[in-house]
């Protein structure tokens, strides 16, 4: 038997061996808060990171554990911690490395929630962020200070769709002794594995493509195990004695998995954004078909982009697959299978026309999510990104006519027909108003 499996095989099997007692083939939902200890010695050992196993679901759970192992396998990371949401994955990653007075360099082109967390929440606790253009590597290098603990960004910016050259950013960050943390929600490990390009930590909102059906919230942090935390004095949370577990030095005792251990041993113990075991099960169901679904997402995206590009009611279309996209070359090099299924466009007639389009679609759903099996549309300027400043909107590549489309898995002709109809209605409405 080959012992090195492909992506789809891992998506179906990684992290789970049917148990001896029942032989359940599908991953069982361990809907429990706690676990019987064998004896007092076993209990103490679990509490002191001496043995594997589960003691309380806030910390770990067998169903969630399968999801974690599976995500580590798919991203080629040494360890993973699954959490309640993508946002809590971002927060726990920051928590694991930063303390008051520390600094983060982050991409200016990110999901609004990520920007808000850094700009408004972390700053209240003394962790400041410099936002920089993710394609300007000199600016990233210049922004790194002695107290910088990470360079944080997304591969595909949301909703500007600029693509980060992860290897180039990693080179700059590593030269300064700083790790690269990537929110890879929009690309999924199927399109690109950031760790293989030099990133050190990968975060996903599992709520999106990985779960894939718009039914369960979730997030995950995958530790690449490929950063030398002991190379400088920047990372005391990993290289100095832990406040618990008899002062364990995570870097010495857990090596490449030190970061993941810190996330679990502080983030899950002291904050506790625990994923529900049932949601872990739903997300695992999604992962089983991730490869197939992403192929279909990409095929539909390619057809829809071509259709919109040729449509005379469409003012502009943006997707990294388009040759005139500023990051086209980087996108194709990093993501040869496709650059994600988020497309943005403006309808001729400006903001009014774009809003009319959103109100006129019938098949596509107007809602605040991406990565559903169904096609979704939204006007980020008045919704997902409405809490960020005008300057930040500009930096994020957000114009006021921008419509964000998350291309679903429907028959492509039905999506095209729905869009065609809605574009025509939008134009009729706005030209009637204009005249």
């Amino acid at each position, binding site marked *: 038997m080959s*012992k*090195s*499996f492909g992506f789809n095989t*891992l998506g179906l*099997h*990684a*992290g*789970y*061996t049917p148990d001896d007692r029942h032989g359940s083939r599908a991953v069982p939902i361990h809907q429990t808060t706690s676990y019987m200890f064998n004896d007092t*010695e076993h209990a*103490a*050992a679990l509490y*002191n*990171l*001496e*043995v*594997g*196993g*589960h003691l309380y679901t806030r910390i*770990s*759970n067998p169903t*969630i*554990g399968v999801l*974690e*192992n*599976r995500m*580590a*396998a798919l991203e*080629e*990371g*040494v*360890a*993973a*911690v*699954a959490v309640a949401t993508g946002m809590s994955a971002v927060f726990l990653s920051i928590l694991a490395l930063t303390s008051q007075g520390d600094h983060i360099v982050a991409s200016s082109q990110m999901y609004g929630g990520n920007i808000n967390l850094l700009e408004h929440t972390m700053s209240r606790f003394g962790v400041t962020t410099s936002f920089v253009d993710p394609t300007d590597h000199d600016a990233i290098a210049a922004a790194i200070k002695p107290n910088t603990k990470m360079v944080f960004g997304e591969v595909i910016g949301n909703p500007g769709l600029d693509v980060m050259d992860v290897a180039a950013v990693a080179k700059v960050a590593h030269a300064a002794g700083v790790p690269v943390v990537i929110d890879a929600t929009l690309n999924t490990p199927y399109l690109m594995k950031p760790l293989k390009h030099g990133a050190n930590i990968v975060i996903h909102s599992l709520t999106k493509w990985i779960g894939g059906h718009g039914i369960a919230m979730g997030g995950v942090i995958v530790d*690449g*195990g*490929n950063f*030398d935390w*002991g190379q400088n004095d920047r990372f005391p949370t990993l290289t100095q004695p832990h406040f618990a*577990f*008899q*002062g*364990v*030095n995570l870097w*010495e*005792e*857990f*090596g*490449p*998995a030190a970061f*993941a251990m810190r996330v*679990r041993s502080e983030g899950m113990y002291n904050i506790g954004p625990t994923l529900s075991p049932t949601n872990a099960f739903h997300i695992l169901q999604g992962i089983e078909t991730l490869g197939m679904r992403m192929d279909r997402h990409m095929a539909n995206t390619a057809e829809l982009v071509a259709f919109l590009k040729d449509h005379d009611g469409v003012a502009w279309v943006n997707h990294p697959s388009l040759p005139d996209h500023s990051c086209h070359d980087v996108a194709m090099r990093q993501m040869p299978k496709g650059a994600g299924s988020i497309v943005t466009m403006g309808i001729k007639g400006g903001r009014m026309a774009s809003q009319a389009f959103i109100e006129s679609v019938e098949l596509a759903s107007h809602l605040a999510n991406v990565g559903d099996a169904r096609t979704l549309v939204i006007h980020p300027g008045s919704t997902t990104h409405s809490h960020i400043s005008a300057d930040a909107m500009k930096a994020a590549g957000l114009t006021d006519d921008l419509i964000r489309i998350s291309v679903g898995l429907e028959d492509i002709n039905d999506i095209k027909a729905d869009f065609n109809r809605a574009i025509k209605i939008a134009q009729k409405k706005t030209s009637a108003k204009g005249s």
Partner: protein
Amino acid sequence: MQISINDADVFVSTGGRTPDKDAPVLLFLHGSGQTHLSWLLQARFFANRGWSVMAPDFPGHGLSSGVPLTTIEAMADWCHTLIKAAGHKKVTVIGHSQGGLVAMELARRHPEIVAGIGLIALALAIPVNPQLIGMAEDNEPAAFDAMVTWGHGHDGAFHDHPMPGNSHIFMGKRIMAGNPEGTLAVDLKACAAYADGEKAAASITQPAMVILAGDDSMTPCKQGQALAAAIPHAKLVKIEHAGHMLPVERGDDVNKALRRLFEQTGA
């Protein structure tokens, strides 16, 4: 714990505990291209159960400086120096794979210092495939891939780790990739060149245990059985459905077996 040996800084994991001078000492020796992290599930476990644990990184491995030693004999002498430097008179030595060869050679050269010996996933010799040595010299990542693929049994291949969320395969690769370039090739050549396994095995008079993995494709079980037969009084423990990286794949089972050995050695 840091100890200076032959002018190089040596890192020795104590399983997260300050060593107790009066506790019996366990010396855990890692295998080719590995580090003290091979003992992830043993070091903390035994350190918290009344033993004084020493799991060193050999020179040029993990967190130790220096250059890798080139022969099993030199590694055995280095261990002797380490034990003396730490102020110990007697230790129970546990070796995995290459570390097992070193443990046997230590027992042969310095029998007075060895209270007992545990050999995990080992045979009388490790005649490393020349192709693997070639790979380790020319294309290390490919050698790491081969080692982790062949080094794990079912649980490793399916990323089913006893520590929630961990992956054996990728942890294994990262541990090896964390060593200075060329380390693995030096180790593999040292293993391949070692020819005194029979003599060393026959010389062991201390309590001994050989722990084998049923699905070991690097040091096949059959050859491990020959090793056990060559050691007077050795106990043989076979753990089914596991691969060569037994200490991480089956930490609980390995610890249970080792405990029986330690009871016998009084260590």
